[in-house]
């Protein structure tokens, strides 16, 4: 029955590529945004993988949305490559600029309502946090605006589509102790932020076959991602201008402090010579170091 098909939505973010060799800083230590390449954020990638998991297990419809400048469609493309999305949403308007997490959540909430031809999403996934903002607020606030029960730090989930029930496994950090694993059952719809340690597993032949099929479809789709892309402005999205962008952002940034650069404790040394000699020299270095530590 088509109407019982799961509807999965994912919210993602285009972030600076902090991987080695790609990131560039200004002389004052702040990020040089012009020089640094932007990519799909690593946490958004994990959320996209969770959506693919749901698609493989239950044959879900997947929509992905993001708020950002026009270039953010690259992140949508990268996400589609991971989750074989059926629909991509870009919410892009100058008046969205300067948004804090709450104003962003307002845009995303409105966007999610427009996904799946306006039908309600069963599960919304978001990343744990963004690698540039690091607040981890946008997900929960969007959940709150949607009125969906929220589950953070999720490391695994399963869905009983027929009975419209989800079972999620999440890490609950308790200060000073190890993380506790909590398993919760909840009726759909729900909002999930995925923990970075999440790794989808496919344990039957059919799941693997379906996984590869989706991956292949995703490659084909992402090559023509524009066919799946819908771009919304504030007007076409129908958001209240007072709730988005700078006017919709109650957050006041009082001060930004630079994280002091850690003192370099690593020293690289290149050992020359033939293989045997090199290994001997490296081994000696290591044993010397251990000796020093022991003293």
């Amino acid at each position: 029955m088509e109407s019982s098909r799961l509807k999965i939505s994912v919210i993602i973010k285009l972030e600076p590529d902090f991987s080695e060799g790609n990131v560039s800083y200004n002389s004052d230590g702040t990020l040089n945004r012009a020089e640094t390449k932007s990519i799909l954020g690593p946490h958004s990638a994990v959320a996209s993988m969770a959506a693919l998991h749901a698609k493989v297990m239950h044959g879900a419809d997947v929509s992905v949305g993001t708020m950002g400048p026009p270039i953010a469609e690259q992140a949508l493309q990268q996400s589609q490559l991971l989750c074989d999305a059926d629909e991509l949403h870009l919410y892009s308007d100058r008046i969205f600029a300067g948004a804090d997490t709450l104003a962003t959540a307002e845009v995303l909430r409105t966007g999610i309502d427009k996904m799946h031809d306006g039908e309600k999403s069963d599960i919304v996934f978001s990343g744990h946090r963004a690698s540039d903002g690091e607040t981890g607020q946008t997900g929960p606030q969007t959940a709150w605006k949607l009125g969906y029960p929220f589950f953070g730090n999720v490391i695994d989930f399963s869905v009983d589509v027929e009975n419209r029930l989800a079972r999620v496994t999440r890490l609950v950090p308790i200060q000073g102790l190890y993380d506790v694993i909590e398993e919760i059952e909840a009726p759909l719809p729900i909002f999930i932020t995925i923990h970075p340690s999440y790794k989808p597993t496919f344990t039957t032949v059919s799941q693997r076959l379906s996984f590869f099929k989706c991956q292949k479809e995703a490659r084909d789709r992402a090559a023509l991602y524009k066919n799946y892309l819908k771009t919304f402005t504030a007007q076409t999205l129908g958001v209240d201008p007072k709730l988005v962008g700078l006017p919709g952002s109650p957050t006041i940034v009082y001060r930004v402090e630079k994280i002091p650069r850690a003192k370099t404790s690593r020293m690289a040394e290149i050992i020359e010579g033939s293989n045997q000699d090199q290994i001997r020299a490296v081994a000696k270095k290591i044993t010397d170091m251990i000796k020093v530590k022991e003293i």
Partner: protein
Amino acid sequence: MEKFDVAIVGGGSAGLAALKQLSNLGKQAVLLESGKAIGSKSISGGILYSKKPKHGRAYNVEDVYGQEFVTEAPLERSITKYILHATSNEKVFSIDLSSAHSYQTNFAYSVLMNKLNTWFAKQAGESAEKYGGGIIPGVHVQSIEWNNGATIVETNELERFQVKAIIAADGVNSEIAELTGARQKFVPEELYQGAKVIIKLPEQIMEQRFNISENDGAAHLFSGDIAQRHIGGGFLYTNRDTISLGGVYHYDSLLEKVVEPYELINKLILNPMVREFVKDEVPQKEEIDKTLPKEEQLRIRFAVSKLIRTWQDLRQSYYSTSGTEDLIKSGKYKTREEIVARLDMIRKDLSSKYRTRFITDYVELEYSAKLVPDGKRCRMKKPNHKNVLFVGDAAGRGIFVGPRIEGINVGIDDAVRAANAISRSLDRNNFDYEYLGGFYAHSVDESPYTRDMKQIDKDYLKIFLNATKDIPKDIIGSRYSMIFKLMSSETFRGLAVGFANILGYDRLLPILESEETYSKVPIELAEKLGKRLTSDYRPSIPSIAERVSKLKYDDDTVSHIKVNKPTSEFMKKMVLLCPTKCYSIEDNQVVLQHEGCIECGTCAPETQWRHPRGEKGISYQYG
């Protein structure tokens, strides 16, 4: 438990052909491959043949994948020259065997297995999908169980599932054969050990050097002193812009006179003819001045590496028609002259700024090794067990008759026969031993390849003898002159071959495959008739450690090999015979370090040998 019609174990060229053929027949099949990706564990010499035997039918690669195979598959070069060289020190005597090579041959292409199997997998996978099947890499089959008429496949990675029939295409070290008890492990007398290196050489330099046209290629075989008195020989095949160079030696002759497999390759590389074949212009970095500041040293190191890489890539494109076209099409360069100018500029930069020297040497890309079944000795008489059908190397099927070496095409022929047999069983829902296995065994028995593994083909022999007719018979030795005389006469040849075939290969092989044939006679030929060749550079041959360090592994934490008796004589020989030196001796006991293992199976006769778990172990880039 999930149910599927057919499981194919192993994603080499035979397993993939089985999957494609089953899909061609509209049947559902799932192929399980233990490597991270299809092709990552496949290697071959390698030449892929398509044959047109006079008697019987061979199922060829194009029968499975369609005629587009020839135009679309990533084939290297069409091998049109086939030359055997007898070597002794600097002397080489050559015999053109191109006519024997083209005997009953539609085409023969040099291939690199990783690329080719990836293409096969794309075709087979897409077809299989239509019938609810497909390819699953990264899965290692652990056991097969028969329970109340159900056949259950168990893997390290997935839940158990049920099938109606299985095709075992898991190679020469077939675990399925061992698990099911379908056959004993192969013993050294039944095997060859092959080792190979891939050498880089720009396209047009290759074409000029080997005197071949743009799409054609050459195969050169070597026997004589390069064999170091072992039974077997060396080979050199031209690929598009690489060379496959290696040796294949009978395993028991290696056990008798133990030698490191890479030493045999090294000996071959040092032969003056081979040295001249593989040589190229190679940049050699100059030592960086140690008195410079550390940062400056690093900067120079990176700058030199980058320039060299650019120079190599550009040169590779420059010496290739399509490469040059692509460069000009991309708009980066307008003419060939511009590319030359840029190449010169980088070269000048490298030599003047960084004192890089350009020397004559050769460049190795990948080292590999595998065991090869000698079909004459070890083909399974009944390549079936219950509802499991064995194909290709797993069934011990490879053709080694004098200079004729075939394997990939044999595996494909088996695979088609197995797929056809299973399709017939699926149609009737009859998987009885006779209806399925008996039918398949009979079909394999009718294969022209099986005939070639059993007896001498007198027409092939005639062509071979014709090619060697100018050789003075006294050199060939008293042992063979009688045979040669008989065989050279039209009337006697039929009788002689008939008589030889009555004797059977079993009794003929010790005469045909001997040190005399592979070493002594060629050395004498080279000494007496050979041309003296020279090569005035010394190739810098990488050590085995350097060769292994270039390979890509995903090491498992546990070893997939367990040594049975660390003090046995056989295991002590592994210290030298293991192609990647995984064995060493400590306190008179043989110790294994599995991390460098390339899964050839050389040590399998006296170890508990398994393939690594899914995704683990070696991943070849060329194969």
